[in-house]
């Protein structure tokens, strides 16, 4: 019967549920979400490609040299690439909903 107080108390409390699609909480400042990439700042060193634990980064030649291509569907959000990038060309992001119906949305160039 110990539960009685708790459940009756809940009658007068608001809901704990977050009505997700309608109300979206904003993640905290250092949340690791979908990363961004600035191609102009990249020097093509390939470090990110080498460290990525999930093999989510492939190198692709775009005429100026090898540049990384990020496959978000394989990304494990460890942000190792951001840490090793010497020019800070890879940017942290806060987007956490990466669901899409097109695979091309999940490639960051």
């Amino acid at each position, binding site marked *: *019967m110990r*539960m*009685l107080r708790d*459940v*009756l108390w*809940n*009658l007068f*409390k608001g*809901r*704990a*549920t977050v*009505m997700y699609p309608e109300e979206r909480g904003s993640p905290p400042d250092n949340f690791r979400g979908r990363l961004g990439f600035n191609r102009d700042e990249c020097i093509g060193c390939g470090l990110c490609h080498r460290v990525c634990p999930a093999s989510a980064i492939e190198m692709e030649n775009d005429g100026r040299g090898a540049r990384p291509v990020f496959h978000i569907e394989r990304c494990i959000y460890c942000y190792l690439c951001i840490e090793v990038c010497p020019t800070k060309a890879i940017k942290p992001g806060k987007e956490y909903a990466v669901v899409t119906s097109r695979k091309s949305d999940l490639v960051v160039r």
Partner: protein
Amino acid sequence: MSCLALLFEWLDRKFVAKLQNRVGPKYTGPFGMLQPLADLVKLLSKEDIIPEGTKTFLFNICPVAAVLLLFIANSFVPTVHVEGVLKAEGDLIIILVIITLYLLTIYMAGSAAPSRYSLMGAARAAVMLLGFELPLMFSSLSVGFAAGGFELSKIVAKQFERPFIAGPHLIGFAIFLIAAQAELEKIPFDIPEAETEIVSGWLVELSSWRLAFFRFSKDLELVLLSGLATALYLGGPIGPVIPGLEVLLYPLYFLAKSISVLFLLSLLSTLFARIRLDQFIRLCWRYLIPLTLAYFLAMMWVV
């Protein structure tokens, strides 16, 4: 009556959700009121699966029988007036017999399927009957004795001045609630359905319209038992009225009273963990049944 059944399911779900700090049904209709209906329609549209080795006749007849039985039983419950839609000599007894018959359909549906889970669920349901049937019967019959007859109309009429619950029948009401909880297979007595042990017991092999019918029959039973409790202890649909407004006020009284009973049942289901079958039987035979018999004999003596 069907609307009432669906409304009661919605109320039950919403209230329990509130008690657990959740939201409950929300999207279908205003405040999710149409969710039970949507569930039913969805189940009806599902693929119909009959497992190999099923006794098909029983499997098909049980859901239909369950719903029909409860419709009949519900027709006896007084809702808008001192009398129900149907009326018969000793209709309280008829309702009690139907409740037992309904459990029989559960048992047969569960044992018709070849699954071991459903067989265990059916067996558990049958064993549970041993525990709660006596309290359910005797607590209802005592009221009948006190009222001097087993017609619900008579019992309700007897409570014009004072509902039975205000007297010594409070014990009977409590016993009735506990037995009803077991009959409805709600927590803590959801032993035949126990999800984490035998998946969902006797329901496990039911699909499509059979599952829909059984789920609907559970809602009907919810209405039946809260309606019955209202009639037996709370004075049914009657209450203080301005003359001429009975037609309007009686249904409202009935709703208010039976919904309070429903809320009590829901509250009860949030307070406990599911107990084990042997513990349930022990609980019934050690405490509930002696208490019931004492109460019954006391009533007989008073009368």
